């Protein structure tokens, strides 16, 4: 019953207010603050990218949105309902190595449907439809180790989309890919996303990727992880590779680089003091 109510109420708008996340360091009582006082609104149907140097808490923030880690304080709501645990309204794309190696491409996509208890009669067909959508129709019976990194990430995306989530959460999905494959995958991801414009949150440390994909880029800084700025990306859609060299793009890139360089400089100063 609650499930149906939740389904009706979800609208894909995500609100984060004063979110803090702490870890207790193993084997000591020291508490480490990974994310501190983050507030963010992610509009329904928008593509938001989160960028920052490593260790700025961007992945932690995403895991909290997925409901996979506990919050120290603050609230995350999706469609007005508080996020406390993983739910059918969200799906996650991981960096790599999150496909079951003993299942085929088709079996891995089907896995998500099985876990969400979709009706048995049509999950095979539905899984296959999404395998085809990401261009892997000919590889449905392959095992993950037989695929390239880019193909594995296509499977990951298909797995996340097939459960029809309101929000798609992506944790550096192209982080392990080479530069060329990355570009192809970005184009591909946008092509798929433009179809039904699900709310998308995409974490990356690659500045170009963040600008190219996002309607808005959230810049995070470290120690502790916080939001430094949110930049609206005013580039038309569909995005094309030609835009990478446009004056606007270059300007966005310059601004983001400054932020990240400042962040790293601050870190080096801290390290020099210690």
């Amino acid at each position, binding site marked *: 019953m609650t499930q149906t109510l939740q389904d009706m109420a979800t609208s894909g708008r995500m609100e984060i207010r004063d979110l803090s996340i702490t870890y207790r360091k193993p084997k000591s009582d020291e508490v480490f603050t990974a994310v501190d006082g983050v507030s963010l609104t992610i509009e329904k149907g928008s593509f938001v990218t989160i960028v920052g140097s490593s260790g700025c808490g961007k992945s932690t923030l995403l895991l909290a949105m997925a409901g996979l880690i506990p919050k120290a304080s603050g609230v995350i709501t999706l469609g007005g309902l508080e996020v406390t645990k993983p739910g059918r309204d969200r*799906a996650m794309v*991981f960096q790599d190595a*999150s496909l079951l*190696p*003993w299942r085929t491409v088709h079996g891995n996509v089907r896995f998500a449907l099985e876990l969400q208890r979709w009706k048995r009669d049509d999950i095979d067909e539905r899984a296959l439809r999404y395998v085809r959508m990401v261009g892997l129709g000919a590889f449905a019976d392959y095992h993950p*180790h037989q695929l390239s990194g880019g193909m594995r990430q296509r499977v990951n995306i298909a797995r996340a989309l097939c459960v029809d989530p309101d929000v798609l959460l992506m944790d550096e999905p192209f982080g392990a890919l080479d530069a060329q494959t990355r570009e192809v995958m970005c184009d591909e991801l946008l092509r798929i996303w433009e179809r039904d414009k699900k709310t998308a949150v995409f974490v990356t440390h690659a500045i170009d990727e963040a600008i190219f994909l996002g309607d808005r880029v959230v810049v995070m800084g470290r120690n502790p992880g916080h939001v430094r700025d949110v930049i609206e990306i005013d580039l038309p859609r569909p995005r094309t590779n030609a835009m990478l060299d446009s004056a606007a793009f270059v300007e966005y890139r310059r601004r983001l680089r400054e932020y990240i360089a400042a962040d790293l400089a601050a870190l080096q100063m801290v390290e020099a003091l210690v």
Partner: protein
Amino acid sequence: MTAITSTQGTVAGEGRTFLFKRYYRPIVSTLAVLGFLLLWEVAVTLGWVNGRFTSQPTQIYRAALVIFAEDDFGWHCGVSFVSFALGFAMALAVSIPLGLYLGVSRWGRLFLEPPLMALYTAPRIVLLPILIVWLGIGLASKVAIVFLGAVFPIMVNTMAGVRGADHRLATAARAFGATPMDIFLKVLVPGSLPAILMGVRLGVGRGVLSVVIGEMFVSEAGIGHQIMTYGQALQFSKLLVYAFTISLFGYGLTVAVRMLEDRIRNWRPSS
């Protein structure tokens, strides 16, 4: 888009060498065995070694004919097989669930790991005198000793398989709303299947060893009993007929498990 690596790398061979390249493993192995048998035969015939104590392939062959004709060979094998099968089945029934449990439960490990490890490393044969007092001379003691021989390698490997499972897979499953039972059944169990089968393979060896040792001491029949009897009578040819029989059985079963392992391992990157 990208290169696809093939699992079954076909051996690129040409003409005559093709057959050899493809089948060189069984060919070389067979030749090695035949060569050894030939050397053995010749060594005895030429008097390099004393055939009274080493026997000889042809003598063993003649002994085998005698044993098949007059020794109730089938019955002895049956007795051994029943002890092995019962003990091994019980070992499977206990070790796999227990290993899976210990793999996921930290408290279970804290309580049970030290005594189980002590038993795993200790030679279980020292328990035989106690088992005889508890269970008497006969089937029950033999089943118990097979059980004790096979249960630990399977359990330890199962536990290691579950503990070694990639936690990122469990996290991914959890992100899609997997229940703890989903994670157990769909991530941990299939993920540890190769380790479980490796344990089963090791368990086969231990179980076969145990049934023979058990029968040497606590049985009126069976392969181990016959080996002991012919050993005391210095009839080594007959002894070796039984020794080969049990070896063949253990080897066959090991190969069968290995084939099963290869089958379920086809998702693994070939190394």
